């Protein structure tokens, strides 16, 4: 039983790390602030979420597990607000969204 839980928890943590790394690569590869936000959004929804799920398997049926899930719930509530605030600030600051036909700007 313990070994099954360990495998599940390691699989979830490895998946979370994968999404974190891919999100970081995305932030580096994307051309402008809006597209970078899409990549950054991955790290806090799936990246942090899968790592927290993996840690919950490690915690077992205790109060710690409930608290870890609460952390994720609060992340899911606050993350879209900060993303929206960033995008809105960039828009009202006059940052033009990147378009594909602007070939010269592509990295």
């Amino acid at each position: 039983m313990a070994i099954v839980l360990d495998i599940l928890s390691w699989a979830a943590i490895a998946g979370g790390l994968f999404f974190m790394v891919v999100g970081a690569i995305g932030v580096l590869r994307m051309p402008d602030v809006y597209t970078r936000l899409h990549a950054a959004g991955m790290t806090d929804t799936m990246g942090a979420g899968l790592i927290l799920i993996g840690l919950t398997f490690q915690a077992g049926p205790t109060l710690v597990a409930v608290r870890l899930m609460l952390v994720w719930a609060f992340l899911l509530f606050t993350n879209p607000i900060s993303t929206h605030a960033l995008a809105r600030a960039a828009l009202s600051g006059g940052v033009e969204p990147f378009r594909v036909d602007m070939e010269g700007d592509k990295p």
Partner: protein
Amino acid sequence: MVRAFGLGAMLFGVWLLLSGHYTPLLLGFGVGSSILVVMIAMRMDVVDHEGVPLYLVPRVLAYIPWLLLEILRANISVARIILHPALPISPIMVHFQASQKTDVGRAIYANSITLTPGTITTGVEGSELEIHALTWADIDGREEDEMDRRVTRLEQGI
């Protein structure tokens, strides 16, 4: 009044989960701080239909699993785009008509759109949402329409 009690019960529930100490003195502190927060919230006039939407709680709990599945699917497609050697993005700004009647419903819809990677709500004007999408495919309307329908159902309780 029901809302104030509901808010107090929820705050105390979170306090119980976070504290983990169940001696009479500390429980008393927990009850006291919950009551204090409810009193401050009532003075701020935020304990109303919009601030404490108790009627939404069971329906939101039913909506979350579908949303998490949608987030997983969107994450995989964005990860595939990022790891693709040619970085096949076609960013686009579109305007969507939200079918929700209340501000709470629109907030849930806009936040759900932002939560799924690949789409970000950048503005809300009345019932019109301004959305930035990473590719054309992200905004072809199928997932967004489905989400719109589900949030409207959630809001109206059908």
